[in-house]
C-alpha cells in the first residue's frame, strides 16, 4: 500500500506555497504567542523566512526534492534570524535527504523525510519532550506517525493521527515551565501559555496533511 502511495513534486510545491500563505495569515497569532513568553518575533521571523522561500520557489522547483528542500532550509537559515531559523532550517534541509535526489517519493520515503527532519530539530536544539519547545509537538507527531505506519493505517489517516498528536503536544506545553529557549528565563511566568514554536510546528505539519491525496 505504502509503495503505491506516491507524492510528487507538485504536492511538495503546493505544501510550501500554502505554508508561505498561512504563515502570513498566522503571523500575528504566532507573534502574539511569542510576545507572551519570548521576544515577540516568531511570526515575523517565519514570515520573513517564507517570503524568501516564496520568492524563489518557481525557480527552485526545477530541482529534485533533495535540492528543493535544501534550498528551502538554507533560505530559512539565512533569513529567519531567531531560533526558528536553525531549527526549521535544519528540518527542511534534512527532510530532503531521504528523497535521494528524486522528484517523486512513496509514502515510506515521505515518512523517512519527516523522521529525518524532526530528528534534525532535536539534534540542533538538544531539546526533549517536556521542555516547552516545538519538540513537544514534533516528537509525539513523529511517534504517532511511526506507530500508525507499523499498524498499517492508510497514509492520510496516519497523517491525521500525526497531526492530532502534534496538536495535543502543542496544548501540552501550556502548563509547562520552559527549559530551552528564551522562555527558559521566565520560570513559572511561562505557565499558562502555548509555546510559539509548538504552534508553528502544527501549522507546518497541517499543510503537509491537508494537501495529501486521499
Amino acid at each position: 500500500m505504502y509503495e503505491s502511495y506516491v507524492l510528487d513534486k507538485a504536492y511538495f510545491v503546493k505544501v510550501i506555497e500554502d505554508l508561505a500563505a498561512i504563515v502570513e495569515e498566522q503571523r500575528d497569532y504566532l507573534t502574539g504567542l511569542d510576545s507572551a513568553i519570548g521576544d515577540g518575533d516568531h511570526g515575523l521571523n517565519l514570515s520573513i523566512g517564507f517570503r524568501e522561500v516564496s520568492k524563489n520557489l518557481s525557480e527552485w522547483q526545477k530541482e529534485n526534492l533533495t535540492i528543493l528542500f535544501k534550498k528551502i532550509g538554507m533560505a530559512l537559515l539565512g533569513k529567519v534570524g531567531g531560533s526558528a531559523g536553525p531549527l526549521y532550517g535544519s528540518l527542511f534541509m534534512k527532510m530532503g535527504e531521504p528523497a535521494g535526489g528524486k522528484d517523486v517519493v512513496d509514502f515510506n520515503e515521505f515518512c523517512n523525510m519527516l523522521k529525518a527532519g524532526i530528528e534534525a530539530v532535536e539534534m540542533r536544539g538538544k531539546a526533549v519532550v517536556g521542555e516547552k519547545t516545538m519538540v513537544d509537538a514534533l516528537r509525539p507527531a513523529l511517534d504517532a506517525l511511526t506507530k500508525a505506519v507499523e499498524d498499517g493505517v492508510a497514509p492520510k489517516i496516519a497523517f491525521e493521527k500525526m497531526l492530532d498528536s502534534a496538536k495535543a503536544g502543542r496544548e501540552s506545553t501550556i502548563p509547562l515551565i520552559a527549559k530551552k529557549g528564551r522562555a527558559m528565563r521566565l520560570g513559572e511566568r511561562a505557565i499558562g501559555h502555548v509555546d510559539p514554536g509548538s504552534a508553528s510546528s502544527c501549522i507546518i505539519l497541517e499543510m503537509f496533511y491537508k494537501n495529501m491525496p486521499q
Partner: protein
Amino acid sequence: MLGLVIVSHSEKVAQGIKDIAEQMNNGMVRIIEAGGADEGRIGTNPLKIQAAIEAAYDQGPVLIFADLGSAIMNAELAIDLVDDQIKKQITIVNAPLVEGVIAAVIQATITDDVEDIIQTAIASKDLNKI
C-alpha cells in the same frame, strides 16, 4: 594567528565589541564580527557566522563568543557548514560576550597558549567590576 568571532543578536553590539577589542589587540588576533540577522534585524544568521569563521581562520584556532541561546545554536550550525579542517580548530567559549572577548584579546597579547586564552575569557565572568 588566532581567530575570534563575535556573534551577537545585534549588528551594533558585535561591531562595537570589535571596536573596543581592537584597541587592545596587538595584531595577534583576527577579530571578525557576525552580528544581527538578515538586513540588520535583531537575531543571528548562521551563514553570516560561517563567513565570519572562514574570515577569522588563519591556519590556527578560532574562538567564538556569542550572546544568547539561539546565537549559540546558529554558531553550532555554522560550524557544521565549514570545512572539516577549520571545524576542528573551533571552540565556542562559554564566557560573557563583551567581557570574554576583551579578556581573550588581552590574554592573547600575553600568551599564545589557546587553552590559557580560553580559560581567561571564561574567568572574566568573575572579574569584579565595582
